[in-house]
């Protein structure tokens, strides 16, 4: 799993790539937290466009980042979710703490054929 962070003004965008499970989540978590604590973003976007697998470790990752980010009144947005990741997040009620949006259909199909 690979994690890349970009900033634009007070917005932090995190691009996640690979399989988000219990084995890979800690490295992503550490990278995001370390950066967020130094940067104090006003808004954070987690871009799931490159995530090819996700289980409840993804729920834990989002909930944990939310708990940290609210401490500096940062809002959270999650973008480019696959149909599957969206289903997992809705099941956990993450739509109550973050704005969730799915990958557009063309992108999603492209993604599937690349697997």
């Amino acid at each position: 799993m690979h994690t890349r962070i970009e900033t634009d003004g007070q917005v932090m965008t995190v691009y996640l790539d690979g399989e988000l499970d219990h084995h890979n989540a800690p490295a992503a978590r550490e990278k995001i937290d370390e950066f967020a604590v130094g940067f104090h973003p006003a808004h954070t976007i987690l871009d799931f466009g490159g995530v090819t697998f996700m289980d409840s470790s993804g729920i834990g990752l989002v909930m944990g980042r939310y708990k940290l980010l609210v401490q500096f009144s940062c809002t959270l947005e999650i973008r480019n979710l696959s149909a599957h990741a969206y289903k997992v997040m809705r099941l956990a009620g993450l739509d109550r703490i973050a704005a969730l949006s799915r990958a557009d259909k063309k992108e999603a199909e492209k993604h599937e054929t690349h697997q």
Partner: protein
Amino acid sequence: MRPINEMRLQIESRSVNEAYARVAVAAFAAALDPTLEEVNDIKTAVSEAVTNCIVHAYPNEVGKIYIQVRLFERGRMEIRIRDRGCGIADVKKAREPLFTTRGGDRSGLGFSVMESFCDKVRVRSAVGKGTTVTLVKLLHGREASLEP
């Protein structure tokens, strides 16, 4: 009912094996021609059960995880994931959404995910002996999804 095919897999409870376990089970199920969504459901449920063995059953040691997959007629799949770890004192409570005995980034939703992505989830456990989770998934397959 007799299975039409069966496989067994034994892995060590190392987190690096989580990906291998879910991919191996999904690959075995390919014979039933599942849809992409069904493949994701299987991978996710297996990942939850295997992760629980690693995180909860064997918290301070590397133990063995035994996986058995059986395929039956008409797309029925049974996946059994067993450990010889610490066991669960109150299974009913453990299955409740948000219940977790671990802090950090565990959400307590593993069993809820298994239940929503499978048709049936059975849990048998004995403290000090181990836990067996059986996931039943009915695969309707690509053929069914093509029907009008």
